[in-house]
Structures are given as C-alpha cells and as structure tokens.
C-alpha cells in the first residue's frame, strides 16, 4: 500500500495555554489535532503530578498533529509566540500516512 510523507508535531505545553495554541493551529489551517492529558513528569523545576490538583496552573497537555512536510516552517512560525516564554517541549518526527488528502 502506498504511504505518504508527513511530519508529526508533538507539543507538550502548559494546560493554561492549550486554548491559545489550538486557536493558532486552527487559524493556520490545521483542523486535525489531538489533545492528550499529561499525568505528571519532571523538568528543570523538579517532579510534578496532577494527582489531587484543582488549579490548572501546574498541569501540562500534549497536542499532537500531523501535517504535510511543506507546511512545517509556516506552522512553527505561527505557534512560536505562544510557546516562546512558557514551559514545554516541541518535537517533530518523520511519519508516514495512508490518506494524504486528510492532511
């Protein structure tokens, strides 16, 4: 079966910034993405966990999307202002997709 090249972008960002990030993704034409909860982890300020938390201040979410390779730079430029000053990680991996017309 024929596979097509794509880029998988995974952005782990503070939960409080989720809406701002997804608004930019939609404005940039990325209408397909998934938001996943992050239960806990560890970073420069030490370990953290969502267990028992009621404030959104400390939580993180993972936003995952797949796009065509030629749209990568435009998208990264669009999301950079949201990510710039905040805790988080952006990683991009090469991926293969079956239905290229979906992206």
């Amino acid at each position, binding site marked *: 079966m024929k596979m097509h090249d794509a880029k998988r972008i995974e952005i782990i960002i*503070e939960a*409080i*910034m989720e*809406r*701002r990030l997804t608004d930019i993704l939609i404005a940039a034409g990325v209408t397909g993405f998934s938001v996943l909860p992050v239960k806990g982890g560890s970073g420069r*300020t*030490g*370990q*953290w*966990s*969502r*267990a*028992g*938390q*009621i*404030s*959104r*201040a*400390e939580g993180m979410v993972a936003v995952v999307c797949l796009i065509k390779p030629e749209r990568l730079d435009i998208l990264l430029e669009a999301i950079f202002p949201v990510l710039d*000053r*905040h*805790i988080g990680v952006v990683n991009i991996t090469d991926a293969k997709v079956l239905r290229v017309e979906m992206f």
Partner: protein
Amino acid sequence: MKSVDTLSGDHPLDMILSLAATNLLSPIILCFVLGVVAALARSDLSFPEAVAKGMSLYLLFAIGFKGGASIADHGVDARLLASLLAGVVLSAGLPFVAFGLLRVVTKLSVLDAAAVAAHYGSISIVTFVAATSILQAQGIASEGYMVAVAAAMEAPAIVSALWLLSRTGSDARSMDSALMREILLNGSIVLLVGSFAIGWITGNDGLREIAPFITAPFKGVLCLFLLDMGLVAGRGLMRAKGVISGRVVLFGLMMPLIGASAGLLAASLLGLSLGGTVLLMTLSASASYIAVPAAMRVALPEANPAVYLTLSLGITFPFNLVLGIPLYVAVASAVMGG
C-alpha cells in the same frame, strides 16, 4: 463544643487558645493534617485529579447556593453593595502592601514579588468555606452575601499586580481580552456566582429541595477535600525545599495578619455582623491558589510558581486554617464586644 457565647467572657488570649484547640481537634483540620503527614511520610495516598475537581465543584455549588438562599430569606440592603465595593477595594489594594513588604523583607525579584502580591490580594475560596464551617460550629451567623464578596475579590488583585509590574518596566504580558476572560470567567467564579444566583432566585424552597445533597454531606466532602489539600500542600512543601527562604516564609505568616486587620477595619466601617466580620477578615487574610496561579502562568510565565504556590498553599493556607480563623473569631469578638 464550646460556643462563642460561653467564650465571650474569657480573657482574649484564653479565648484564642480555646478556639484554636477546638478547631485543631475538628474533623476538617485533622483531615488536613493527615494529608500533610501522609505527604511528608511519602505515602502513595492520592486523589485522582477528577475526584479533587469534583469535590471542589460540589463545595463551590453548595456554598454559593446556600449564600443565595440566605439573601432571598433576609433581603438585600445597601450594605451588600457597600460590602462588594469594599471587597474590590481590599483585593485591589492589598497587593500594593504585599509587594512593598516583599521588597523590604525578602530578596525576591520584582517579577516574583508581583506574582506573590497578586495571590495575597485575591482570596482562597476553600479557606472561606472552612471559615463558614467553623462559624457554623460555633453558632455564629453571617451575612449570606459574603459569598458574592468572595467572588468579587478574586480578580482585582491580578489587575493591581500587573499594573505594578508595568510601572517597573517589567516584561509582563498585557491584559488582553483572552486573559481578562480567563480571569473573570474562570470556572470557580462562574459556578460560585451562578449557584448564588440560583439560590437567590429559588430561595428557601429551592434549598429545601436539594438540602439532602448540599447540606448533609457538606462537611464530609469538605473533610475529604481538605485531606487532598493537605496532600498537595505537603508535597508542595517537600518540592520547595531550598526555593523559599525563611524571610519569605515570614512574609507568608505576616501578610495574613495584615490582610485580616484591613478586613476588620473594612467590616467595622460597614457594620457587618460578627460572622460577616470574621469572613471578611478571612477573605482578606487568605491567598489564592486556583484562579491567580493560572493567571500568573499566562501573564508572568517567568515568575517562579514554586514560590507563589508554596507560599499560598503550603504556608498561608495551613496558617489560616489552623490558627488564623480562630484568631480572627477571637479578635472580632473582642473588638465587637461579642
């Protein structure tokens, strides 16, 4: 349990100690202590995030509804509007006091000091809920609209702190419409004000209909919620070792007393009842750990959350819960001749 009537003839210090002892041995405080001890002992006891959020939603709904029903029962007077205004002024003004105190007493940066100051102008709704529970146990009535005052005190402190930063030339995110919407329409405020309105509209008939849900289980849920708060506070304290200095801790103990004094003065000017005075003192003495930390992460991402969350939840919240509220009851009783 000793009521405030039997305490009123005691020496003020005896009264404070007696109230503190009674308070310390109440289920809600013991549950909080259990949470802190379990966290410090590195127990794996924990509440799922959804359960903790569910309990906080329940408590906000119950306290808002009961406050609204109380207003329907007793009616509205000019004091309600004056109390709301006083709440806004206290919330907007206290960050300036906190910021000045932090800059004099501690070595926190301007950014961290402003973020902490915003927390101390805003309020902790759980401390407020605990205070109403303690007042009820002491048989002290309070104005139902204090719930609305609590809601009004959530946001102005954030505006003051950001204004303070703008005056120092620091790089804070401007107060855009998205941030303003998040502050004013955060879930806690919407639920508190909304349930208050429903309680007001439906009155005591509405309250009777849902009393088995919002009255009888209230203290049990509050106990479990404070157990969770104890766990979160204890784990926060362990993570914050070396992050906050002794002087910063001292601020976390001094600022509630300054806030409570301002609340007492405002309540005296407003002519609030003993219960209302204690609640306004408690609100002014408490520090936010739901709405403001989230707003600070958006507006001041470079400010260190370990500092403001540890101070708010690890220092000031336990202080108010265990010693502060009994102290405010005793002082208000002494000042008002209760």
